[in-house]
């Protein structure tokens, strides 16, 4: 599995594969958005504000998922010292951070008409903001610490610390009283969201995952090239 992410494999990725993924992503997002905005019904209490959910939920999913991968890659990088793991983690951070911000902003836009407030300091919203701050810290370390080894170590530690926040975000709505509702889709029980809303949500989720994959692969390719270039410059 990891072999597919080795530099030579990635660098030989043809533009054809990117174009294929790109077209597939456009298809999913296009169908998903049309379905979500025009064909899915309004909610029986929220009305049309429910349509924000089709962006909000996938964005949150990606924000948490990316940081989860960054955390795992960082732990493995610290233990096994595999060279490509920090590059994978580093390439996931920008797209994850943008989706964390999208999640917070769309949530805020939804909160005003539904709850009656843009923002509250409940456990779910606060922990999500903390995740975004961790993203910013992680990216800043890579950006502003010049020494590669040093940046690698500090950013790994930040990623591991930030990973503890992920279960807190996920379960905050169960552990404490929060204004944010619990999840409508769980592994253990039937979804509490009607299938006419579930289908566009899943289409949007797949589209968002494809988008994240494309951005990640492009970043990763660049990072590998940069890494190789730095190495060569050092030798000369």
């Amino acid at each position: 599995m990891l072999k597919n992410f080795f530099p030579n494999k990635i660098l030989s990725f043809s533009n054809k594969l990117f174009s294929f993924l790109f077209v597939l992503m456009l298809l999913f997002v296009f169908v998903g958005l049309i379905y979500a905005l025009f064909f899915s019904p309004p909610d029986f209490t929220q009305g049309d504000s429910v349509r924000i959910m089709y962006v909000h939920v996938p964005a949150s999913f990606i924000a948490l998922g990316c940081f989860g991968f960054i955390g795992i890659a960082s732990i493995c990088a610290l233990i096994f010292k595999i060279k490509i793991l920090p590059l994978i983690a580093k390439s996931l951070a920008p797209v994850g951070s943008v989706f964390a911000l999208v999640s917070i902003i769309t949530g805020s836009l939804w909160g005003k008409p539904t709850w009656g407030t843009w923002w509250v300091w409940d456990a779910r919203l606060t922990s999500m903001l903390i995740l975004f701050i961790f993203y910013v810290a992680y990216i800043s370390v890579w950006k502003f610490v010049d020494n590669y080894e040093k940046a690698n170590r500090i950013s790994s530690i930040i990623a591991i610390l930030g990973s503890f926040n992920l279960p807190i975000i996920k379960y905050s709505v169960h552990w404490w009283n929060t204004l944010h509702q619990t999840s409508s889709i769980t592994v253990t029980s039937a979804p509490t969201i009607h299938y006419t809303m579930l289908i566009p949500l899943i289409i949007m989720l797949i589209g968002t995952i494809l988008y994240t994959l494309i951005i990640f692969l492009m970043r990763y390719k660049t990072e590998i090239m940069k890494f190789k270039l730095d190495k060569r410059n050092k030798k000369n």
Partner: protein
Amino acid sequence: MLSKKVRSRVVVLTFTLLSIILVLYVVLKSLEENVVYFFSPTELYNKEDISFNKKIRIGGLVKYGSTINNQTSINFIVTDMNNEIIVSYKGSLPNLFSEGKGVVAEGKLKDKKYFIADKILAKHDENYMPPEVGKILKKTKDQ
């Protein structure tokens, strides 16, 4: 299989991570009062150190048929099916405020059963459905 160096790193990291989890658990447990966004009527009922001057938030369901709309204020009962608190509020309600639905009120307690709110937030639950399904569901509930 694993080299000595790798094994020692695994041990060190495992211990560090476990201790962080422990510290985090203790901190969050001791800060629970601040982490919860609101108290339910039962939690408030069982709470011993209630400060009547401090702003707090309570939350629960708006009891069916309990809303009384005066000209000056709105009164309703917040319930968690075990205990109830009467809430009095002056101001405009959020659109999603309705009987049988979740609500969070911010304000001060007058006594253990009477709450004066200066802010009301509607709480949405995890049920999403089209209007037709919602209507049918409500009908079967009312019968």
